[in-house]
């Protein structure tokens, strides 16, 4: 009886991924406790988020990829409708129109699109299997461009760029020609100075500060400067848990969310960072293995995109906090505080697990 329940609960879970996630969760709670100023209620709140996320993951893991493939189009259309609704009737908070008030709850459709967009594109390329032509990529790009444009308009630059990248991963894995990639990136580079010359002075200034925070140490650059000081002063082994001065004395902004990596880095040092990079690398490696073993086009494209998108989040966040990338509001996956992003993330891992454990059922 118990073994049956156990089987029911865990038959679609991937033990390797689960181990990594569990370890990341542990790290997250410790860092969060320190970052929140030793506020245990934050830990409870995040624990609740984790439970919700695990539930979502279990659900996703138990839905077969075939059903996911079927759900791709309705989900995408629903997401698009919601995005349009946001653009028309969305509530404004902090100067951005991201939320939709449904009367009984508020939802953020862009989060849905983080899953729905790669699913839609994976479905599209799966349905065009064997007929790989340039027109497929044009249509694929358009399917990607609409939601990205709508989210960018909200404005939510971080999310829109990451959704764009998740879609791009599908295009890339579906076989976007190398020549096109080469030409596109070359022309993008070539157009950069032209684009730069079209900008107003204040816009240029903003971009300069994005790349060089020291130009505005008390304004926009303050966050990055304090974060870099936190990381650098962590040294090789860190200042120790709960002992980060930048963290505990409030010098770090947004330290439970977007800048939590600086807290981790200050208290656990270079060694801690290597550990975290290794952990992320293992998760990514596992995801890529799952993708490579997937049995149909939809599954492999989706698995690859989800895995690489996880990488995007991790890289962009650590890159911005350590000052090599401009600051865009992106949380550190698995570590930052917050329910929505955690649910979306675990949902993705659930899909990965589903793809891995439903293999035999879809064997041709």
């Amino acid at each position: 009886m118990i073994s049956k329940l156990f089987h029911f609960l865990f038959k679609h879970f991937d033990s390797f991924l689960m181990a990594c996630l569990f370890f990341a969760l542990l790290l997250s709670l410790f860092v969060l406790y320190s970052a929140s100023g030793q506020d245990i209620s934050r830990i409870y709140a995040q624990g609740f988020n984790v439970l919700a996320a695990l539930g979502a993951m279990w659900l996703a893991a138990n839905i077969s990829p075939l059903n996911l493939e079927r759900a791709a189009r309705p989900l995408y259309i629903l997401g698009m409708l919601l995005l349009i609704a946001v653009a028309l009737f969305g509530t404004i908070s902090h100067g951005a129109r991201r939320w939709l008030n449904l009367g009984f709850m508020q939802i953020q459709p862009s989060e849905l699109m983080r899953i729905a967009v790669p699913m839609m594109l994976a479905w599209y390329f799966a349905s065009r299997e064997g007929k790989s032509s340039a027109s497929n990529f044009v249509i694929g790009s358009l399917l990607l461009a609409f939601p990205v444009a709508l989210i960018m308009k909200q404005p939510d630059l971080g999310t829109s760029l990451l959704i764009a990248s998740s879609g791009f991963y599908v295009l890339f894995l579906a076989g976007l020609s190398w020549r096109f990639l080469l030409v596109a990136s070359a022309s993008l580079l070539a157009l950069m100075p032209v684009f730069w010359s079209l900008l107003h002075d204040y816009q240029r200034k903003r971009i300069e500060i994005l790349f060089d925070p020291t130009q505005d140490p008390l304004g926009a650059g303050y966050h990055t400067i304090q974060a870099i000081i936190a990381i650098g002063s962590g040294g090789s082994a860190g200042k120790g848990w709960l002992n980060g001065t930048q963290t505990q004395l409030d010098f770090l902004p947004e330290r439970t969310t977007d800048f939590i990596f600086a807290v981790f880095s200050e208290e656990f040092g270079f060694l801690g960072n290597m550990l975290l990079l290794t952990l992320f690398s293992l998760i990514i490696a596992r995801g890529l293995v799952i993708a490579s073993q997937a049995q149909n086009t939809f599954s492999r494209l989706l698995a690859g995109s989800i895995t690489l998108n996880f990488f995007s989040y991790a890289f962009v966040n650590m890159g911005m906090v350590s000052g090599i990338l401009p600051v865009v509001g992106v949380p550190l996956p698995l570590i930052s505080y917050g329910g929505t992003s955690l649910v979306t993330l675990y949902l993705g891992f659930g899909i990965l697990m589903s793809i891995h454990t439903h293999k035999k059922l879809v064997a041709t």
Partner: protein
Amino acid sequence: MVAELKNYIHEQYYFRLRLGVAGLIVLSLFTLLAFRFYYLQILHYDHYQTLAENNRISLVPTIPNRGLILDKNGVVLAHNFFVYTLEITPSKVKNLDSTIAELGQLIEVSSQDKKRFKKFREQSHSFESAPIRTHLNEFEAATFAVNHFRFPGVEIKSRLFRHYPLGKLGSHMVGYIGRINDKDIENLKKDGVYSNYKGSDHIGKSGLEQFYEQQLHGVTGFQQVEIDADGHAVRVLSSNAPIPGDNLILSADSKLQEIAETAFGERRGALVAINPKTGEVLSYVSQPTFNPNLFVDGIDSENWKLLNESLDKPLINRPLRGIYPPGSTFKPFVALAGLESGKRNPPFSIQDGGFFTLAGSSHRYRDWKPSGHGMVDMQKAITVSCDTFFYGLAMELGIERLTSFVSHFGFGRKSDLDIKGEIGGLLPTPEWKKRRYKQPWYPGETVIVGIGQGYTLVTPLQLAQATAILANNGVAMKPHLVTKIQNGLTGKQMDIPAIVQDRIELNPENMAIVKRGMVDVTLPGGTAASVGANAPYSIAAKTGTAQVIGIKQNEKYNEHGMNERHLDHALFIAFAPAEDPTIAVAVIVENGRHGGSTAGPIARKVMDYYLLGKMPAVEPSAVAAPVPANATGTATITEEELHD
């Protein structure tokens, strides 16, 4: 089926190739991050470590207690005490005006408080707190404490305030402190002591407070405090206690000071008393005076206007910066020049007919006594203040010899007192006149220098110092107000040594003649007989008058119907006991007319207290109301006394 399978394998191959490329990109970008971490955390660890420490550790200065100023008996002239102040940190307050208005409903905030607050704010950074109210009483402090939550950015602090318990008494001597301004900062930086003033907001502005600033201030301590991003102190890491400033112990006696100042009544003037043997200044009076407590926290414009625009000029430090012609008080020094040069030694005497003329000129240099003094030798010339005698002597000495001799008594140069801002007075010479006026020196100008008129100008301090040098037989001791500096921590006292400034060899016989002449001044027949009346010790003195406005050749000086402020200044110098002097005094009463009747009695009261410990009898009319010039009824006042 096979084709499909082939196709599938082919497709999977290409997909895995792409995955592999993606994996490589992931790996290389993570490696890039690893290098970034290596760069920040290993290579530049020291740099960021320092930045983090600078972030969290702040050096908070602890202001040392300013040294006290005490009189010779330990009476406190300047001290510090803590008062509650209500302070606003402008950067932490959203709407300053409404906050102040709300505070005003709770605790009285006058418009003067607001003005001062505004001034404070202009002088300091917005993250430094400035007092909106000072001297909060217990009730007000409690009222605010209860309502504190309503006023973020407003705090009760306790500040150390400088206080001068004796108020107006001796304020020109003690001076005052005030808020450090840009010029002070510049000076502190120039002297390389600015870092010691971190946290201090006051500095000595005048008097002893200014001169002994370095000793009084003490050494600022520091606390290493851990602060959070808002600048709030979290805990103290280490502390370095401040070293309190040294205490100053003066030679002046506050009781004597009070007697001297009271003796002036409503009159303007100055008095300096010096111990001739040591140079210790026993009393330092500038009248009228002011309340230094007004200046400590920035004087308000009303009081400033009152003080600054007063005709009596209470802010002028008269002993140091008031310049007057010495008049006949100059004569003893000219007399010594005559004796030492061998020109007027006994039995030399003249027949005084009431005036002196230069050869080949009809201009009469008149004696103050139109009929003349008859046969006059040196001693009598001093006693009766015979102008005719000194006209001739000055002429015979010549201006150069005269000025170079009397310069040994400190005329024409600063006496180096321990208060800043001294004026050196003026001892005229032909070169000076050429430089100043581009005109030659006329013999007639030498004549009037003989009686202390003309270009000659002295400060009351110089006059007192000259008297002290005379009393000390030509040995000039450096005058000083502070005699001991007491270590604020250990209480150990360090004596300020007596320093010989200058020395002139004088023939004791000549000294004896001058002293006898001066003693006779306070005896019946002298110009200040009433001053010496009933004195149980002998007083050597000289009276003087200094013209405020010039009188034409044939015009008679008429006291009546003259503007009070155009009346002659009265001067008086004295030392006592004459045979072994321990006090030398110079008194100037502005528009006091007669040295013997107005300035002399003030000196007598000072000497009585100093030598006998005797308190002056209450006789306000004798001093406050000037004696009528033509009064004949008062038996003690002779014709000599009514002139100089």
